[in-house]
């Protein structure tokens, strides 16, 4: 299981450094891109301080100058000049270092790092204390919006979006999901224009909203039954809106650091979740968390939470939240005491956290090793978000949603689980009522093998008959009837149809495939006249269009043939001349017009093919004119557009080689499509289904499974119809 290399002990150490160093690191790596970064230097400090006020008065951001905080900031920042120049270039950095209180008043803080925070007065305290009448659990509704909005107002570099998470490829383990093509990571939400947010963010309250997160792009509409399938977004970052005030989130959305300070007491739990919920269509979803620092106690909880679980509680304490705690190794599912589960974890460890939607259980890993599965009914009736809880300052984590390689061999694990889930589905007994015309019945009687085989035989036979595989159908019928006469494989009527009918239909269809439209038309007129008159002769029109194209293609062929003959004649001439002529001729041939006929015997060859070409051309044109006569008054858009496309083929020397829509109309595949259409039209005229029952069953099954995946039945993600039934069947087609 632990194929992934063991985590080297040396790796975590740099990570485990106090966050101050990390802060600087991240500051430095930020693109210093603003050309005006050296611009209004003293101003930002004043402005930034004002954002404390702006929190309560969103969006107006008056540049009132306040001083109290400034003094704090300046006094505690020893290296201010440096800090300023660096931070100036990226206003959003503030959100990282102290997201709650200010937007950009961070410069000193970046430098101060944890030291300032824990030792002296943390500016965070200043802002929290006035807010103390509010319950601690207050959701930071408009906070993220406001600072961002104001920052974009204020900062010179705000016009360019601040650096965002680098979008990353969908983690490979998700390829096991049948719905993988819908699962997408995305660049994290762009900063929205100011004024747009409040409506969304303030809506956080108890509205039983769908699933949209206040942050980011327009709410991912929960797909109603009638809208087209949409992209399923994967979690990519921690949410700035749904995090406790005490937590600060790095700019790339992956790090969480506890910023609550001594002035507010250190026992406060604080949780965060991702912007996006986990689509159950993943089948299994997995993420890993590096413990950058466990602080003193390692009160860290890693797990999942529903959309609106209290942010002042660790995941696992509240209903609809589940967590694995680092200090005692216990698992928590809406419980306060916890249940012994795994080892404790701390600085330098990597904890993996997964949810299997096919069983609604969670599982955890530590440093690449599987710990175990735990919990039941996880996320059964609630949207699930990756969630983290911290309790003490100094605690800090970094998440990996697939941006980096996982420590645990999650791909292998998912493959196994997928196989298990699929085996479970394949253990479903087929019931006798499944294919009965009465429709699905609540009473399920398992069908015997015989009954199942009988049902399939019937499907196969009608399929063969539908597509006119006459000989196969007869051979199959013979073989199935012989040894097992007691099976009620319904071989009459419904199966093969009236005797000779299948053969006739097949012959007609094959004529179209071969391009012999005349015969197809004549036979259809003779045996199935209703087909040609149905829909005001639409089928007839289509067949005639094809006939016209066949005539044109014939001229193309004749043209090619003539050109070849002439080329050969030229070559022969050149051979007859002296050897020196070779070079000359090679140049000369293309220059001469094709109509430039040579002399003597060569000319005769060319002439006969030329005659044929002209005859074919005139026939085609004649046919086209007669069609024009017949259909120019037909106002049906379908008729007119097909006619236009058909006539358009005339314009091309070699329509198929030309490509594009012309080739689409002309190419041989179009014959097959037309043949199929004609087949269906004949069947329809006989009151028979246009699709073989087998095909209907397959499509219905695929649609059912797809819908299950979309509405959150995890096992459906592991029922990969394409992979199991199509790709796994040997490709024997030529």
């Amino acid at each position: 299981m632990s194929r992934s290399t063991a985590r080297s002990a040396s790796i975590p150490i740099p990570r485990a450094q106090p966050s101050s160093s990390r802060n600087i690191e991240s500051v430095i790596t930020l693109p210093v891109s603003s050309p005006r970064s050296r611009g209004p230097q003293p101003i930002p400090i004043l402005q930034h301080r004002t954002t404390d006020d702006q929190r309560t008065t969103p969006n107006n951001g008056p540049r009132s100058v306040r001083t109290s905080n400034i003094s704090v900031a300046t006094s505690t920042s020893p290296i201010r000049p440096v800090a300023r120049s660096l931070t100036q270039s990226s206003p959003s950095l503030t959100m990282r270092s102290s997201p709650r209180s200010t937007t950009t008043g961070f410069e000193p803080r970046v430098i101060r790092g944890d030291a300032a925070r824990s030792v002296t007065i943390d500016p965070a305290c200043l802002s929290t204390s006035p807010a103390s009448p509010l319950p601690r659990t207050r959701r930071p509704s408009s906070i993220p919006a406001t600072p961002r909005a104001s920052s974009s107002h204020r900062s010179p570099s705000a016009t360019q979006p601040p650096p965002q998470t680098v979008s990353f490829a969908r983690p490979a383990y998700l390829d096991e999901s049948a719905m993988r093509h819908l699962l997408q990571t995305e660049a994290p939400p762009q900063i929205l224009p100011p004024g747009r947010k409040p409506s969304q963010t303030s809506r956080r309250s108890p509205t039983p909203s769908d699933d949209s997160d206040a942050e980011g792009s327009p709410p991912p509409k929960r797909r109603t039954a009638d809208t087209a399938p949409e992209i399923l977004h994967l979690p990519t970052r921690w949410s700035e809106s749904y995090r406790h005030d005490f937590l600060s989130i790095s700019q790339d959305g992956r790090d969480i650091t506890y910023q609550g300070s001594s002035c507010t007491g250190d026992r406060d739990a604080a949780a965060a979740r991702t912007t996006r919920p986990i689509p159950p269509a993943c089948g299994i979803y997995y993420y890993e968390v590096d413990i950058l620092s466990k602080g003193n106690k390692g009160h860290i909880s890693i797990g999942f939470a529903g959309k609106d679980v209290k942010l002042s509680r660790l995941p696992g304490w509240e209903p609809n939240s589940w967590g694995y705690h680092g200090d005692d190794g216990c698992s928590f599912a809406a419980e306060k005491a916890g249940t012994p589960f795994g080892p404790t974890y701390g600085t330098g460890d990597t904890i993996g956290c997964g949810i299997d939607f096919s069983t609604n259980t969670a599982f955890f890993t530590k440093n690449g090793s599987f710990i175990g599965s735990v919990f039941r009914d996880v996320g059964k009736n609630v949207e699930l978000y990756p969630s983290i809880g911290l309790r003490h300052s100094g605690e800090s984590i970094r998440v990996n949603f697939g941006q980096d390689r996982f420590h645990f061999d999650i791909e292998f694990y998912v493959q196994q689980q997928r196989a298990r889930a699929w085996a479970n589905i394949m253990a479903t007994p087929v019931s006798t009522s499944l294919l009965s015309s009465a429709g699905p019945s609540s009473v399920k009687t398992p069908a015997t093998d015989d009954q199942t085989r009988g049902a399939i035989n019937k499907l196969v036979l009608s399929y063969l008959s539908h597509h006119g595989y006459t000989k196969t159908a007869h051979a199959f019928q013979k073989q199935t009837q012989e040894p097992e006469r007691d099976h009620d494989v319904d071989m009459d009527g419904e199966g093969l149809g009236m005797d000779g009918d299948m053969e006739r239909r097949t012959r007609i269809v094959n004529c179209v495939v071969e391009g012999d439209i005349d015969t197809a038309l004549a036979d259809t007129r003779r045996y199935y006249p209703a087909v040609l008159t149905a829909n005001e002769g639409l089928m007839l029109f289509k067949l005639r269009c094809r006939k016209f194209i066949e005539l044109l293609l014939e001229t193309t062929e004749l043209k090619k043939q003539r050109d070849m003959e002439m080329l050969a004649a030229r070559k022969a001439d050149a051979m007859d001349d002296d050897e020196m002529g070779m070079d000359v001729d090679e140049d000369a041939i293309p220059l001469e017009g094709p109509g430039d006929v040579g002399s003597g015997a060569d000319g005769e060859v060319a002439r006969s093919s030329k005659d044929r070409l002209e005859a074919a051309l005139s026939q085609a044109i004649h046919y086209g004119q007669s069609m024009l006569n017949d259909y120019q008054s037909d106002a049906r858009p379908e008729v007119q557009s097909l006619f236009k496309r058909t006539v358009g083929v005339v314009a091309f020397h070699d329509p198929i080689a030309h490509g594009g829509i012309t080739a689409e109309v002309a190419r041989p595949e179009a014959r097959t499509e037309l043949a199929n259409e004609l087949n269906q039209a004949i069947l329809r005229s006989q009151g028979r289904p246009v699709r073989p029952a087998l095909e209907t069953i397959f499509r219905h099954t695929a649609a059912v499974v797809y819908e299950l995946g979309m509405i959150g039945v995890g096992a459906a993600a592991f029922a990969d119809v394409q992979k199991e039934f199509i790709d796994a069947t040997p490709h024997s087609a030529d």
Partner: protein
Amino acid sequence: MAAPSPSRPQKISIRNEEWDRRLHEVPISKNDLNRLIMDYLVVQGYKSAAEEFCHEANLSAPVDFDSIESRMNIRDALHRGDVEDAIARVNDLNPEILDTNPALYFHLQQQRLIEYIREGRISEALQFAQDELAPRGEESPEFLTELERTMALLAFDALPSAPPGIAELLSPAQRMKTAGEVNAAILESLGQPKDVKLVGVLKLLEWGEKELSDRAEYPHLHL
């Protein structure tokens, strides 16, 4: 109908047109379906149909058709009740099949015992059970149970009175079950898929219909 429980979201409903559109969008081609048909013909051993289908559907042969033939001969022998012949043929094909499948070998011997009993060759049946089956019954509890069940046939002389669980051993279905097992083992030994894909489709349909009808109103399968 009971009111929906609060924890269970209300059923969604999917209209006919929407459903038709989705059916239409399922990516499946005629060639895909042809291959599913071919898979069925090959696994089930409809050799001549498979050959014809190759030509008519323009598919290349997925397997050597002769292998179908020998599989079918074995199946036919079992359907006839000629277990010895079947065992000989399997060993002709590949002796490892029975060597490496003790359960399969036991089931074949069990079938042989059943055939003895069916034909009323009681003393032979007893002899065979003691010589061949009893030692194997010690190998596994499953074998022992099966052996006991089979021997119980002797106790019920008048067949109609036999309990269904025992009488079914004499049904054609039991022969087919054994034949199916042998067929699967041969296919496996040839490295060919042994499960019929079309049966898988039906199973998936059964599962999916149940799951989805709990959660949604949508058009039923209409054949």
